[in-house]
C-alpha cells in the first residue's frame, strides 16, 4: 500500500497535467507538474525511490503523450540525476533557487526535445522556443516553490510515521 498510493498519485498527476492545463491554455502551452515532482525527488527523496519515481513518471508521460517511447523516461532520469547532484552541493531550500533551477531544467528539457525530434523525425521545432517553451519554463519555474510545498505536504501525509524526510523542511 505504501508504494501503491504514490504510484496512483503519479498517474493522476500526469493525467491532470495533460488534461486541465490544456483546457485553461487551449493547448497552447502545458504546465509540466511532473517535472517539478522529479526535481523535488532529486532534492529530497532517497536515490532509489526518487529514481524509480522519476522513471515511472517519465514512462507514464511517454505512454500518454510522447510519440517517441522512452524520451520522457530518459529526460526525467537525467533531470533527477542533475537535481540529485545539485542537492549534494547546494542547500536547496531557497524559493528563488528552486524557481531558477526548475526554470533551467525545463528549458534544458525543451532543448533536448527539440534535439531528439530533429534527430529522429527530422522535425524542426526551433520556432517553438520563444512562443511555447520559454513561457512554459517560466510558468513552471514560478509555480515550482508552491508545488514543492504541496508535494512536501503529500509526502508527509503518505509517510505518516516516516517523519525523517519531513523534518528536513
Amino acid at each position: 500500500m505504501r508504494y501503491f498510493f504514490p504510484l496512483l498519485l503519479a498517474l493522476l498527476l500526469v493525467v491532470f497535467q495533460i488534461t486541465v492545463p490544456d483546457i485553461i491554455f487551449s493547448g497552447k502551452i502545458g504546465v509540466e507538474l511532473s517535472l517539478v515532482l522529479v526535481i523535488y525527488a532529486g532534492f529530497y527523496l532517497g536515490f532509489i525511490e526518487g529514481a524509480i519515481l522519476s522513471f515511472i513518471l517519465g514512462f507514464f508521460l511517454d505512454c500518454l503523450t510522447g510519440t517517441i517511447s522512452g524520451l520522457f523516461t530518459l529526460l526525467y532520469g537525467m533531470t533527477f540525476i542533475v537535481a540529485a547532484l545539485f542537492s549534494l552541493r547546494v542547500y536547496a531550500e531557497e524559493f528563488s533557487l528552486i524557481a531558477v533551477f526548475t526554470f533551467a531544467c525545463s528549458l534544458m528539457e525543451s532543448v533536448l526535445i527539440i534535439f531528439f525530434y530533429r534527430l529522429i523525425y527530422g522535425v524542426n521545432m526551433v520556432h517553438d522556443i520563444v512562443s511555447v517553451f520559454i513561457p512554459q519554463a517560466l510558468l513552471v519555474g514560478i509555480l515550482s516553490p508552491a508545488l514543492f510545498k504541496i508535494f512536501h505536504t503529500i509526502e508527509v501525509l503518505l509517510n505518516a510515521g516516516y517523519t525523517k524526510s519531513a523534518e528536513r523542511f
Partner: protein
Amino acid sequence: MLLPKKYQIIILASILVILSLVMVSYSVKHPEKSGFFRRLVLATVAPLEGMVNASIKELGDLWTRYIFLIGLEEENRNLKKRNDQLRGRVIQYQEGYLEAQRLRKILELKEQIKYRTAVANVLGRNQFLSSRTIVINKGTSQGILVGMPVVSTQAVVGRIIETSWNVSKVLLIIDENSNIDAIVQGNRAQGILQGNGPRGCNLKYVHKMDDVRKGDAVISSGMGGIFPKGLLLGVVTGVSKKDADLFQKIEVTPSVDFAKLEEVMVFLIGKEADR
C-alpha cells in the same frame, strides 16, 4: 549501501540512461509496436481522463448555472431555478438531437465509403509540449490497428499511433510529427502537409511556380499508403513566396475543429488489416 553516495548516483544514472536509450531505440525501430505496459497504462488512463474531463465540464456547468446566481432575490432565484431545470431539459433534448444528427451524418458517410469502418467516441484530448493526440474508445478488440486513418464528418482527423484492447491513441494532423502526402484540389500541386501545432498545418515542398490561392482545398493524394485519395484535409489560409526560396510557404487550416470533436470514424484499412 556500502558505496559512497556519489558512486551510487553514477551507477543509478548509468542504469537509467541505458534503459531509457534502449526504450527510445526500440520505439524508433518498431513504432507500430506498443508493449504490454504501455497498453495497460493507456487502458487504465482512458476512463480516468474521461472522468476528469466530465468533472471539469460539470464544474463549469455548476458555475454558470448556480454559483453565479447567488445574491439575487428569493423569487428571482426560484424562477431562475425553474428556468434552469427547463433549460437543462431542453439542453438534454438538444444534445440528443445533435447527437442523432452527428450519428446520421457519420452513417451517411459510412454508406458512401467502400471501406469497413468503426465509429468511436473521443475520450480525451492530449495537447502537451510537442504532442497533439486524442484518445478514442475503440481498440484492437474492435479491429483497430496502428496506422489506420481516422476521419470526422468534415475531414481527416489523423491516424492511429497506438492501440490498447479497448482504447486507441490518434495522432492529429496538427501534430508536428504528422506528415501527409497531399494535393491542392484546384491545380493538383503536390506537397507534404505537416502539422504545425496550434497554428494548424503547413503544406511543404510546393514549387513556387504552382498557382496556389487562399481558399483552395487541400486533399489527401492517396500516396504514402495510409490515407485514401480525396479526403479533405483543410483549406489554404496563407501563401507566401520569397525570391530566395525554391518552394512557397503555404499555411493550411484543418477543416476539423479538434476542440469540438466528439465522434470519429476509423477506416479499417492498412497493411496489417489487409492481411
